[in-house]
């Protein structure tokens, strides 16, 4: 979230799209109801289904799954053509005025630089601003230059007229008009809309670009950095935010730093590429400090072994020989028999990963599988026959499965990072049962044994293992407190200011990442978490909910990264003079008396930067402004464009009917074998989408009796019209199949599903909740990922669980 849960109550309008906020985030949804009741806010809900969120919404509309860019692109077109934009904000706080290179282009669905053989944009050099002789980007503050971002954007979305939108999304014109006109009202400076989304946007082959389109709408409306505004990801797992923050992705290091690729063997070139310098004069460009964070990380990992002479152990870091070694890649290699063993920690891939058949075959080719989990997961029993629910021949599977039971979150001390980037410390409420141990203890013991093996027997490349800094009271069981202090960071020697005064004694905890240095004097395991555990103690354990400005911004409650800041880009809540855009939205402003930025939040800005200096509010960007034009930061184009899901219920991309290359995301992630497993709409005519129900949490709570009581048995949702076509009534069993497998489930026949008019025909949707499986106390069910395709978003690799095609029949 750019903003935070409580801040939703400051919104005047709430757009819930690409997620079913009431269903999947019922507790956080209380802030939506607060906004409705106490701020007279209106709630808009757009979804392929009429959901629990729709049940309490003021306006709701059906949309065909996977067509959100079309709806939002049409909204951009509408806001620009009706001049409902926050003009001063757009002019000063966005890249609208910057000029783009002359050789940038977009033709029939394809941006410049595409290589069809590789399915990728191999040459992105034209996706860049035109730079002047001084190295800074050229700009036209009149926004009239044909190559300024604003004009390029206007032209790009001019194709998204209301009839096109209606025909692609399956949404009647009058519904579109009504919702767009409501959203247009939020362009005034003193009103804000917040956007709440979740996996309904991320789990598409164009997921990242959907979210970008929404962010562009928010920039046009001047809603970024504003209380009650922003673009807010409601995370699907209680600690998944922490996972990405700590860099548990194959190409990342902690704190959103990135691993080098195989061509980047030179340390200073690696740093230079990432330590972004301003491309507008005088801008902050905070990533220019990259080396301080990187060196502090290396000191945290390798201690005294990391020195300036060895480039802080840069050579010890893995270099990516291909873009990603992620879960898609891992299961592809596992399926090819290239993996010997697999550690599966807090992950139930047989249930959670697409194309379950491929997962079963892959796991069957392993020598060993280790499952670390509090529950008896399907993955740990993938080899066991459960009849139709898991129809395997155990005698043909030789994989040795080792289960290491772990404690669950309620049995550990530690911090959980929520969607709002708050690190909240919690204390164990109970002891783990039986032989269950904390994950850290299991990993600790494993590490000690591996290190001993290297010590005793040597190995190809023992240095990073033997030199890993492992200074814990009990080496086999690092404590949560020790780990938290480690990621916060310490001074390794006395730190001094410019006058030689000691500002931090050696061994003391850092108060913030601003204390970090690039010369090895500081260590920190995750720079963005610095400040979470300082000399003043555990900031994450704070529980002071005082709210001195009445904005819901409780700076004394837990701790938020970065720097305990609650609303990102909050400098943008004030105008160019540093005054709040409206008194209802006063949040962070310039105090000329104090010569500093003050207000309800920690300013996301150099705190003494006078507005007269004109520094832009988006300090992580080299231009200091928000991006309509993504430059080279996305792999599939600088402007979002609609592409059909890889499995689509229609024949072509209506925006590019004659260009098969532009039917699906031209840079989408798919392997050849998986492409062969895609179905055709003739055989599988129904659009399918998967989702969660409020009664359950993923595949966990089917193990809990009470959750099983309130939602006991697997079902799918279909419209009355589709039910009539296939000859079933509510409560009958249906068989749902894709080109990869099938499930059987009870049919919920409902008016909340409607056939949508797409072009000249009706498209039926099938709603498929995910929660059932063959372990647990709920009624046994089929793993729905028997149906889903192995297709990844071009940027995040997130599988396309939300849009594929199936056939529904009476079972």
């Amino acid at each position, binding site marked *: 979230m750019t903003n935070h849960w409580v801040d939703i109550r400051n919104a005047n309008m709430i757009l819930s799209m690409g997620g079913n906020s009431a*269903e999947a985030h019922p507790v956080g949804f209380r802030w*939506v109801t607060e906004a409705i009741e106490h701020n007279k806010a209106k709630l808009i809900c757009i979804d392929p289904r009429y959901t629990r969120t729709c049940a309490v919404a*003021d306006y709701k509309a059906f949309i065909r799954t996977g067509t959100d860019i079309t709806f939002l692109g049409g909204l951009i077109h509408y806001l620009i053509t009706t001049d409902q934009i926050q003009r001063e904000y757009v002019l000063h706080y966005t890249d609208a005025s910057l000029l783009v290179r002359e050789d940038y282009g977009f033709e029939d669905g394809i941006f410049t630089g595409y290589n069809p053989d590789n399915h990728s944009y191999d040459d992105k050099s034209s996706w860049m601003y035109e730079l002047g002789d001084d190295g800074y980007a050229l700009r036209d503050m009149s926004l009239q230059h044909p190559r300024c971002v604003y004009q390029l954007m206007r032209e790009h979305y001019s194709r998204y007229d209301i009839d096109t939108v209606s025909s692609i999304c399956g949404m009647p014109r009058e519904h579109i008009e009504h919702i767009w006109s409501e959203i247009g009202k939020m362009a005034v400076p003193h009103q804000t809309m917040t956007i709440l989304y979740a996996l309904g946007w991320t789990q598409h082959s164009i997921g990242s670009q959907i979210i970008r389109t929404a962010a562009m709408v928010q920039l046009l409306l001047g809603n970024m950095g504003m209380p009650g505004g922003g673009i807010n990801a409601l995370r699907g797992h209680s600690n998944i935010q922490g996972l990405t923050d700590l860099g548990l992705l194959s190409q990342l290091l902690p704190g959103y730093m990135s691993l080098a690729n195989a061509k980047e063997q030179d340390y200073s070139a690696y740093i230079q590429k990432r330590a972004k310098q301003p491309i507008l004069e005088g801008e902050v460009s905070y990533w220019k400090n990259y080396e301080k964070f990187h060196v502090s990380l290396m000191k945290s990992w390798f201690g005294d072994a990391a020195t300036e002479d060895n480039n802080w152990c840069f050579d010890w870091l893995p270099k990516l020989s291909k873009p990603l070694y992620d879960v898609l890649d891992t299961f592809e290699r596992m399926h090819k028999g290239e993996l010997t063993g697999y550690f599966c920690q807090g992950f139930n891939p047989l249930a959670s990963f697409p194309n379950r058949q491929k997962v079963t075959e892959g796991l069957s080719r392993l020598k060993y599988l280790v499952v670390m989990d509090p529950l008896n997961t399907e993955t740990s029993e993938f080899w066991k026959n459960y009849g139709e629910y898991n129809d395997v021949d155990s005698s043909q599977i030789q994989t040795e499965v080792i289960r290491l039971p772990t404690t669950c979150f309620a049995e550990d001390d530690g911090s959980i990072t929520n969607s709002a980037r708050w690190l909240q410390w919690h204390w164990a409420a109970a002891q783990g049962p039986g032989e269950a141990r904390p994950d850290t203890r299991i990993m600790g013991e494993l590490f000690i044994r591996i290190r001993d093996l290297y010590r005793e027997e040597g190995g190809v490349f023992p240095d990073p293992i033997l030199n890993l800094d492992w200074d814990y009271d009990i080496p086999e069981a690092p404590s949560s407190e020790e780990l938290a202090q480690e990621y916060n960071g310490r001074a390794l020697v006395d730190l001094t200011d410019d006058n030689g005064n000691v500002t931090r004694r050696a061994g003391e905890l850092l108060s913030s990442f601003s204390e970090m240095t690039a010369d090895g004097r500081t260590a920190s395991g995750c720079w963005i978490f610095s400040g979470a555990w300082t000399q003043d103690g555990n900031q994450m354990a704070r529980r002071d909910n005082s709210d001195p400005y009445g904005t819901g911004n409780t700076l004394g409650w837990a701790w938020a990264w970065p720097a305990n800041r609650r609303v990102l880009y909050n400098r943008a809540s004030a105008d160019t003079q540093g005054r709040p855009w409206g008194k209802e939205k006063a949040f962070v402003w310039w105090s000329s008396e104090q010569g500093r930025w003050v207000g309800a939040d920690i300013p996301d800005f150099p705190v003494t930067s006078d507005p007269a200096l004109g520094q832009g509010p988006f300090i992580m960007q080299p231009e200091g402004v928000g991006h309509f034009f993504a430059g080279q930061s996305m792999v599939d184009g600088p402007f979002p464009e609609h592409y059909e899901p890889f499995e689509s219920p229609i024949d072509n991309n209506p925006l590019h009917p004659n260009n098969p290359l532009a039917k699906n995301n031209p840079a989408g992630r798919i392997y050849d074998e998986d492409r062969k497993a895609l179905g055709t709409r003739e055989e599988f005519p129904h659009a399918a989408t998967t989702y969660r129900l*409020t009664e359950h949490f993923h595949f966990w709570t089917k193990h809990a009796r009470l959750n099983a*009581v309130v939602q006991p048995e697997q079902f799918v949702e279909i419209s009355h019209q589709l039910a009539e076509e296939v000859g079933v009534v509510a*409560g*009958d069993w249906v068989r749902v199949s894709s080109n990869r497998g099938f499930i059987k489930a009870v049919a919920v*026949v409902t008016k909340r599903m409607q056939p949508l008019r797409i072009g000249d025909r009706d498209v039926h949707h099938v709603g498929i909740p995910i929660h059932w499986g063959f372990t647990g*106390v709920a009624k046994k069910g089929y793993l729905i990922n028997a149906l889903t395709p192995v297709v990844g978003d071009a940027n995040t690799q997130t599988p396309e669980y939300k849009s594929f095609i199936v056939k529904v029949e009476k079972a």
Partner: protein
Amino acid sequence: MINSQNIVARSATTLPAPHVRDDVVEVAKLIDVSKCIGCKACQVACMEWNDLRDEVGECHGVYDNPMDLTADSWTVMRFNEVETDFVGGEDVSKEKELSWLIRKDGCMHCAEPGCLEACPAPGAIVKYANGIVDFDSNNCIGCGYCITGCPFNIPRISEKDSKSYKCTLCSDRVNVGLEPACVKACPTNCIEFGSKKDMLARADKRVNDLKERGYEQAGIYDPAGVGGTHVMYVLHHSDEPGLYSGLAKDPRISPVVGAWKGITKPIMSAILGITAFAGFFHYITKGPKEEPTDEEVFGEDDDHHRVSREEEHRS
């Protein structure tokens, strides 16, 4: 039974009620249907607090589960899809709009409880000074008269022990100053708890907000036919409560119960005998839904037992 001083009405008895706590504030639970997302947290909280575990059932082609109130499910969410007039501002589509009306069903804690009126077992149903209507299961004989007497069809007889059960409004929690478990668990604050006066004021504000949003028929459900209730709803369509999965439009205690009470109960109370009850109700537990005839209900005269049972309770 704790705090017997709070009991202001008691089934099947003519003994005067204690009045030492008559000035206790009347409480109420307010359920704002317009803010309910049907998450069933209230159902789960109810089962948790009251140590109930219903059966893991089946899907019947709807979101409702369990499908109906049971002796182990004292509250259930009821989901109903209806088409109503479009109210979101200007009527752009001139069409009916789909509404998914979700109502938490359970005991309404009537000011004039039909269950208590109908109950023939002394002290099996009581009403407290704060308005809560509670079942004292020790005294329940499983006759099912409370079901007949209830204008909302709430109590359910357990197959395990042939006794009748329903929501207690968490009288045990309220007694020590806590809100009911469902209120505590509700994530959207659509269930609130407080004095009836405060809840009516809250409800008024909510009704005004809904009217501003175009729900002209928004209103409070606090039906006069049962003297008002201690569980109230805010409805968008208060003119048609039936849209909310059959909520009674004008609930009243069945005239049969009223007549039975008015004419025969004073006599009956005087002559009811515990011994006879024991034998008789052992018989009827085989078919608790079958209503016994008046002749069957009237047992032998055994004043002595009745009195000693009363004493047992006072102690």
